[in-house]
């Protein structure tokens, strides 16, 4: 294993995604190449329908590429089956989604503990409580998602994303469903926790302001990588 790939926690080469539709094969992504270093924060931006979510789903191993290869922390995703990819996600990846995706029948605390429990880790409670404290929800531990506001639900989702100290965090438009104020709160939380934990952050967004908070910005246009620019945070970090 080269030093480069050790540093590059995500390495994407020649990534292409095609889907079969009624009108024939449709290429959603073609020949995408980039890499993300450990601890780096990267934003993926582009117009609606340009393929951002598709890219994210491939990176997280939720879907499989048609061509090309993705290495996550040194492991080639194409060599893993669905079970192995699930295990990889359990070990190394955290998620935050636009629609918060909490399990309705579990409390805030239980939702946060869910990834750890699925991975068979029973001592996650202390860490979960601590994370919920950090997102300012220590008084809502036993509340169900339906009893929380959108912003609060997203904060639970963020706490959940950081449980088990993942190496990489994927976020798909985490603040798009929230008002300005709450959106900002969420974004700040995300970046703070990211910094504290030394996590690699890959963030999909429409929001130029948000993108600028990342170290690098990957621009996608019509399924192709248009350019990679430096974000505002590059100077700082």
């Amino acid at each position, binding site marked *: 294993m080269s030093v480069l790939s050790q540093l590059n926690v995500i390495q994407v080469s020649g990534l292409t995604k095609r889907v079969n539709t009624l009108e024939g094969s449709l290429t959603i992504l073609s020949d995408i190449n980039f890499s993300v270093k450990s601890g780096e924060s990267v934003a993926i931006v582009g117009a609606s329908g340009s393929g951002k*979510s598709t890219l*994210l*789903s491939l990176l*997280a191993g*939720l*879907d499989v590429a048609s061509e090309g290869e993705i290495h996550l922390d040194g492991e080639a995703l194409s060599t893993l089956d*669905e*079970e192995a990819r*699930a*295990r*990889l*996600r*359990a*070990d190394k*990846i955290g*998620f935050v*989604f636009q*629609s918060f*995706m*909490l*399990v*309705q*029948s*579990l409390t805030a605390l*239980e939702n946060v503990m*869910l*990834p750890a*429990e*699925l*991975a*068979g880790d*029973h001592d996650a409670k202390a860490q979960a409580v601590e994370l919920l404290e950090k997102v300012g929800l220590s008084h809502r531990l036993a509340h169900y*998602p*339906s*009893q929380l506001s959108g912003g609060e639900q997203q904060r639970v989702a963020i706490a*959940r994303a950081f449980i088990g100290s993942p190496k990489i965090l994927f976020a*798909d438009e985490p603040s798009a469903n929230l008002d300005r104020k709450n959106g900002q709160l969420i974004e700040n939380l995300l970046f703070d926790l990211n910094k504290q934990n030394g996590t690699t952050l890959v963030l999909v967004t429409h929001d130029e302001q948000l993108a600028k908070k990342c170290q690098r910005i990957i621009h996608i246009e019509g399924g192709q990588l248009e350019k990679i620019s430096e974000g505002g945070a590059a100077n700082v970090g």
Partner: protein
Amino acid sequence: MWVKLAFKLFSRELRRGELTIIFAAIALAVLTVFSLSAITERISLNLAQKSSDFIASDRRLSSNHAFEPQLLTQANKFGLATAEMLYFDSMLFANDELVLGSVKAITGSYPLRGKITIKDSLTSPAYDVDTGPKAGAIWLSEGLFYALKVKVGDKVELGAGLFNVTKVLVKEPDAPFFSLSGNKRVLLNYADIATTQAVQPGSRVFHRLLFAGNEQQLSEYYTWLKPQLKSNQNWQGIKDRQSPLGNNIVRAERFLLLAGLFGIMLAAVAMAVSAKRYCERQYDPVAMMKTLGGSRKVIRNIFLLHLSLVTVFSIVAGLMVGFVLQTIGADYLATFMGTELPQAGFRPWLLSAFIGLVCALMFSLKPLLDLFDIPPLRVLRRNLGDTLAISRIHIALSMMTIFVLMWIFSGEIMTTLILFASTLLIIAILFAISRLLFAAGRRLGLRPGSSWSLALATLQKRANANAIQLISFALAIKLMLFLVILKNDIIADWQMQVPADAPNMFIINIAKEEVTPIKKFFRDNNIAHEDFYPVFSGRVDAVNGEKFARRVSKQEGEENDKNAKKGVSREPNLTWLASLPEGNEITEGQWFTYGVTGGNDIEVSVFDGWQDVLGLKLGDTITLLVNEQAINAKVTSFRKVDWGTLKPNFVMILSPNMAGKVPVTYFSAAQLHDSDTKAISQLLQRYPTISMIDIKSQIEQAQSIIAQVSLAIGFVLSIVLVSGALVLISQVQASLAERMEEMVILRTLGAKGRLIKLATLYEFMLLGGIAGLVAALVSDIALLVIQQQLFDVAGRLHPYIWLLGPLSGALFVSSIGYFMVAHTMRQNTQGLLRKLG
């Protein structure tokens, strides 16, 4: 590790009510099957016991020759209780009066089932005893007391023996329902047969062995006995008797069976729909868990554990509720019937638990497999995995399961097939209707904003889901309608068989010259009576010159046994008549014309039930042995005979040119009231040779059994109706849950609660009405087939349900829908939005 999570999720789902419908559906299936099969079993055990009383045993073997002694010893070896019986005619003599009596000699164990009713003197009250007269004593029926001018305590000569008359014989359990033996009956101890010297080689006697025991012992014995049965030996159980009871028991059993099947179908539909719905609601959590790294195995384990927990809980709950229900029901029935119902065995427990298990497994199998296959990508692409059409595999699997369940439960492929086919028909019709209707509605282009247009728009938008709902509504309505009508028909039919003004006394053995004076006597005393029929008895000896073998037993299901030789060893009562009796119907051939006008060849009209038994066709020649005289008669017609009526019915009716060829007596039936007692004594004293058979007790017994069975049927029907209502309610609830989102959006957009409520009301009214109409039509057609195939009654259409179906469907479905929506609308919009999650 996953276990803890699984239990946590389970308890939450339980609390959130997500599992309630599945739980209710399985429990419903279990409790329906349990309570129905337990009650059915208890009732039919009771009926079988009661009916066994009618032959004083569970099975009997009859012959006109003595039985080999090992038949009895072997029966005792199999653990059966036995009794012996011998019928013969003998002269009785007392006070210079000589009278022919029909004697029944019995061993001490007679009757094995039922009781003998006797009186201490002609005027004292009747009571029941368990055994017959001791050696040296005889019991005489009332008619003989008059004919011999004796009283209790006198001595009477019977054949060569002298006997003490100790009791008045009122009734034996197996007194012939209709025979020529009449009321000159004598009950004698078996040990005294020799004393009478009345039975000599060559005398006409009739032997019977009676057996009682459990079904297993009986069938083991029959297996042993069958190969050695002779052609003159006739094995019979209660089902072999052609009596109103035998037929009614079979009908009642069939009804209960059908009701049980419907209960299963209803619960199965509820289960199939709710399992699918539950799994669909788990799509998001499962996709989420997969995204968060949950492995397939963990997810599978979690949901399989849920399924097992639900299954176990609901089976236990179903059994418990079912047990309570059937206990209450059986107690109620028992107090009404004035008897104790025997306990049901293990079968209902095992059967219902098994059916619950199969329901749980089969109906959730496909939805669960789909659930395990939900791609994690769904967290990003929300509609991924949403199955728009229900999977064909799920439908096929569910249908197959329902079919197999019905088959297991009924053990009858024919019934199952008819019901299943009519159900498929409903589904097909409804699918076509919903397609047409929803397509047509689209073109109507109703004014927007009105409740009706909103209702129609909603119906169209959800065409697929609605089709499914329509089908489940219609199924539930169909099953309920079906049972209601069937019940009404069966009970009406029974009541017709035993009308309140039925004759309750048969008068037989009337000499030709007595006919006119007796008619006059009836007229003078204002007694209603039937025609006087000439009667004689004869044995069917041969058809087209070919003699017969042993008769098969219906009790042992031998009618379908191709190897059993067919034949009859019965001596039917015969008559000649110029016109077809009331209630009979020619099925083939023509009623006599030639014989009536005085030709020489004798014709015969045969009961169509004997057509197959004897292998007869029109034009065959039957040889009848009447008093050793052979009479040849040509078959010119077959008749349907309703043996359910308590009227004189004849297997064979000969053409009127029989008159004068054989000695006959005349027969009639009269309706006698308690106030006529004096007239009866007068009649018996004036014409001592005639006999009267009191069938009042038989009529009362038949009526009481009909009442019991009607009640049982009503009870079972109400269970099925409750199940049906539950299915409808759960369906409406499910469909409302699916509509929540829309309602909330409409509400949020400012639609008035009234508009939404009315729209829902109309929508459900349409759904319920259409479902009800189709259900009515299809159940009427299915009924036509079922009544003919299973209940042996002429099927007919019931136009009133074509109105009842849609009306009740619309009313019921829409009112449930309305109340549920009204309830929802009381919550504020914010709360509703939250609930959607």
